[in-house]
């Protein structure tokens, strides 16, 4: 069988250089694209994670506001334009199970001056939402287990602004939180290149009507 000597002939140096240059350009483009995609993906994931955190905060706050007996707001610094702390009082609803000290059970209410109350009003659980170092926290202090217990949890990060107000003669609490997400692996962490997201929640107080004035 006759061999095809023409196809076995090698490339010239020029051909190899040109091919290498083209391959390098394509490879560099691909790498740059891949890195950019990876950055975008990371930023998007971080953004979605922060949205989940925002949702968690709104759900947690709504849950507490619905069952609150009192709602007050204050400022962590007098110079702030708007309040950034919410303090809630919840009913002293839980007590230790007589049969299982590690289990909390609802207690029966009793009447005081024509009103039904749970437990000891002086030991009602106190809940505070506040921002510290761009992290929004929920702190609860209560006597459900018989002694004062305080638990503090970080609910979400990258909080830029946080404010509350009373609507409908104090029956509705409106809350808004502005988040400024960080972009992990971003080459530019300047706040100006990032978009903030602002979330709102309006919660109808079930137990009590608050005063309509704001401090």
């Amino acid at each position: 069988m006759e061999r095809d000597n023409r196809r076995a002939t090698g490339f010239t140096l020029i051909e190899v250089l040109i091919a290498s240059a083209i391959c390098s350009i394509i490879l560099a483009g691909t790498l740059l694209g891949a890195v950019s995609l990876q950055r975008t993906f990371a930023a998007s994931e971080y953004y979605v994670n922060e949205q989940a955190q925002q949702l968690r905060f709104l759900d947690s706050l709504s849950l507490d506001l619905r069952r609150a007996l009192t709602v007050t707001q204050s400022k962590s610094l007098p110079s702030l334009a708007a309040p950034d702390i919410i303090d809630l009082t919840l009913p002293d609803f839980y007590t230790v199970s007589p049969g299982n000290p590690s289990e909390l059970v609802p207690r029966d209410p009793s009447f005081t001056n024509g009103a039904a109350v749970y437990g000891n009003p002086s030991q009602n659980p106190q809940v505070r939402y506040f921002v510290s170092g761009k992290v929004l926290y929920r702190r609860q202090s209560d006597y459900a287990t018989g002694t004062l217990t305080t638990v503090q949890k970080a609910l979400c990060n990258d909080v830029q602004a946080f404010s509350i107000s009373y609507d409908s003669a104090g029956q509705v609490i409106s809350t808004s939180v502005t988040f400024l997400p960080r972009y992990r692996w971003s080459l530019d962490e300047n706040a100006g290149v990032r978009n903030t997201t602002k979330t709102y929640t309006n919660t109808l107080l079930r137990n009590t009507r608050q005063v309509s004035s704001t401090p």
Partner: protein
Amino acid sequence: MKSSLPLSRRGNALVVALMMSGILASMAAATTLILQKRFRQAHQTAAWEEAMLAAEAGVDLAINELRTQLYDPGSAFQGWETQNPDGSLSATAPTGLVSGTTAYYTSTVFLRTSEGGQRSWCEVQIEAPTLLIEPNTKEQWYRVRSLGIEEVPGGGKVAGDKEDIQLRKLDLKYNRRTGQSLNGRPQATRMVEVLVKPVGTFRLALLAANEINMNNHNIVVDSYDSRDPSKSTNAFYDPAKRQDNGDIATNGILISAGSAHIYGDAATNGGTVLNASNVTGEIRDDFFQELFPVTAPVFAPEAGSPTSALTTTTLAAAPGNPANYLLSAVTLSGSETLTITGAADGSATYATVVVSGDIKLSGQSQIILEPGVNLRLFVKGNADITGQGVSNPGAPLQFQLYGCDPASATGGTSNKTMKVAGNGGLRACVYAPTYDITLLGGGVTDSIYGSFVGYDIGMTGVQSVHYDEALGSGGLVSDYKVANWFEDTR
């Protein structure tokens, strides 16, 4: 086409193609997994929110049954079960929720036909425990526990961070409250505990089913609270301690305020408040309040008691359980009186009087309540309590006048009339939603203290109406409201 490449080179191309396919497939799988996790988290969060809607719908169902128990007792609690003290259920519906009983209900299952297709329902329990009998009023409060349940699409897999799981506490494999397997149907559940209190009939200064006409007399309507020394003096109205809860409202569309000075709100049902320049509170047009019909109580009257009051008559109130009297009519003239006598020391005594016909007072005649007497007067016919009106030395709640539903009374089904004289400072509360009420005054200082509910309410010669805020928790139970609300997050 026949390939000219050697076999070894063809194999390399296949490997490269497979590798590229593998890389692309891995990227697609990773993306799908991430998206799936996000979708699952979104569905779980949404289901948790919707479980609250189901739980609060259960509370509404419970309060609706309690209201039905007031207005149509025969229809209340149909489809409900009686829960025994050990937690087991009896298929029989409770006939009225008396103290010590518990009613239980599982709602219709709603299927969301759009995305997810999950089901939701609620399980409701209404308790009437003896510990919820208010010690002062002896009224029964109720405890409602409603569990809202919403199935979660996307399978029983965890999504979200640890904090999300601690907050929302989804049941993915087992029901955390009962320990039972969910058989592949994960769910979100939320429990709400609500205390429901009864509400009396006298919640407003003036309430009409149709129209209020203040007749352009610059009337003053305000409030005081006989229970609070800072809002009254010796439990009586003090103009220096005036409050602004003298609310007036109608289920109809018209209040003719007549430039009255109303220290409170004025509300209509989509209507108008005319001449409302002196209303200090809100003027609203979104008002409606159910006005239940009154049926006179059925009882055996006191032995040997009079059967009518056609001349001066005396009836004795009793401590504890009320003394009951059934009169065919009350017709007094000249200086005749109907006197309800109480205890010598003025301590609390009670009487219930049902008048099956008309009440008519003229001349100087009068209905007199001795100190400490609490009278509930039910009239089935027309009432003309003019003459010298009613002498009640106590609080307005001590003289309650009810106009009975025409359908349950003699004399047809049309509206009846009720005239009440305000001279001398009438202290009374009147509930007659099918009566046209006219409040009459004869002098420049005539004031009325109490609360008035009628079909049409008109005023002639009355200078002021002072609403006692203590009336809000008195009188017959006409409604229920949520007094305490708590979500049990265990």
